[in-house]
């Protein structure tokens, strides 16, 4: 015999005040990392360095190299709207960036990044082959 629990629905309100530059940047076609005068770079960006100093915003640009990828066929809750999607991590100098791609990328391929909305309306990073 099985008893059904009371329904519990959760949708969180996430404050992104400290990294707003990044979130706004996506809408402007820019992808930001942060850098610290101590020499550390952060992607994903963070407003304060572990050394305690305030970091500075810098754009990620140029060509990257695909480090690894996958194509997700077993779609998780929250992505019901999506067909199978390709996740890629590419290195851009001192940072690695995660993104989606519509192209059949392989490890070692050279890519550039751009930003666009997905079908659910979320702005994100995408890669295309050079």
């Amino acid at each position, binding site marked *: 015999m099985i008893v059904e629990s009371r329904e519990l629905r959760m949708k969180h309100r996430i404050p992104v005040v400290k990294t707003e530059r990044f979130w706004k940047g996506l809408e402007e076609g820019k992808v930001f990392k942060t850098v610290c005068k101590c020499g550390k770079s952060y992607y994903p960006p963070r407003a304060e360095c572990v050394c305690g100093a305030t970091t500075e915003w810098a754009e990620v640009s140029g060509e990257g190299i695909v480090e690894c990828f996958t*194509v*997700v066929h*077993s779609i998780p809750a*929250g992505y*019901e709207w999506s067909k199978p999607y390709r996740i890629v991590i590419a290195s851009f100098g001192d940072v*690695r960036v995660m993104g989606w791609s519509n192209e059949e990328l392989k490890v070692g391929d050279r890519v550039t990044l751009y930003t666009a909305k997905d079908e659910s309306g979320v702005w994100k990073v995408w890669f295309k082959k050079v």
Partner: protein
Amino acid sequence: MRKFFNFFAVFIVMRVGVVGAGCSKFGQRDVTIQELAFEAVSEALKDAQLSQEDIEMSVVGCVGTRGYELMPAVVVNEYCGFAGKGPIRVEAACATGSAAVYTAYSSIKAGIADIAIAIGVEKMSEVDTATSAAIGGRAGNYLWEFHFYGTTFPAYYAMHATAHMAKFGTTEKQMALTAVKAHRNAAKNPKAHFQKEISVEDVLKSRMITYPLKLYDCSPIGDGASAVILASEKAVKEHGFDPVWFESVGYSSDTSNMSMREGYVGLKATRMAAEMAYKGAKITEPLNSFDLATVHDCFTIAEIMAYEDLGFCKKGEGGKFIENGESDFGGKIPVNTFGGLKAKGHPLAATGVAMVYEVFKQLREEAGNLQVDLKHYRALTHNVGGTGHFCWVFILGR
């Protein structure tokens, strides 16, 4: 005089032993989380010939994000008869079980308790698969990864697989061989989630989950519990236990964001934890030091990377290692003799405790038709949380 004793105490290394162990049947289980935990706890108590009154500290490991009890430690603790003793609830994703064992071990090392129990329990089958996938995807960093890119847990390991395949030529067939071995061992383990042998063909033809991982490359979503009772050397003498001793403990962790990792062909946390454990037990040749090992094979690629990161073979040679049968019964180091996460099952928090259960049974020569030959009387457990977000390596000996 007191100063003298304090000085002396620093140099007395009080050993900690496992003195009893229990494990439930893994799989889709129609029992509540507390009933499931009690199956393992009562077996462990009986095994050690102890009752609840003898236990001074209880640690409950549970990831607990899929069950209806969101804060299950007190529920489990009460039902098992330990109200008033702990519970300390711990969480370290898929390494929660080892975190529980480590916490119980630490409480004995610190002199807080002489006998402690570590319970790992997980109910994963109460929600649907898509929900489970979305929860598992949150084992990394939700905001920067799952939120944007839908990084499910299999996807994280699949990315390691594509990197490993590209760099070392590791094949899907080699990965499949670890699943075939796991099922072959689990078929002889009545507590395993799956008791059916499979072929390489079955794996290769199974449904794609996230390229290149197919259904049979993945550990199942299921329920299970395991419990181990740990005792100080003093308690071992008093009770006359026949323990399996902790020879050393290693642990490490890594970044929550996959994009912040140095590389994708192995897990740094495993290498660091192993280095710490090997140093503690003075092990210089990992391949020739253990009668068996349990490694964290949540996905087939994870087992191949584990061979390399634990130093059983060189980086990049994990595919060949399984191909040559080195990790099978009769090989250089039998790995996951009870069926591994892949086929025995992977109820998150139960896994790390069940690894200790497995080596305890093997080292006491109580493993029945899955018994390995003992030469070193020493075994290793390797439990990873997330994708190398946490790692514990235990070395136990008898």
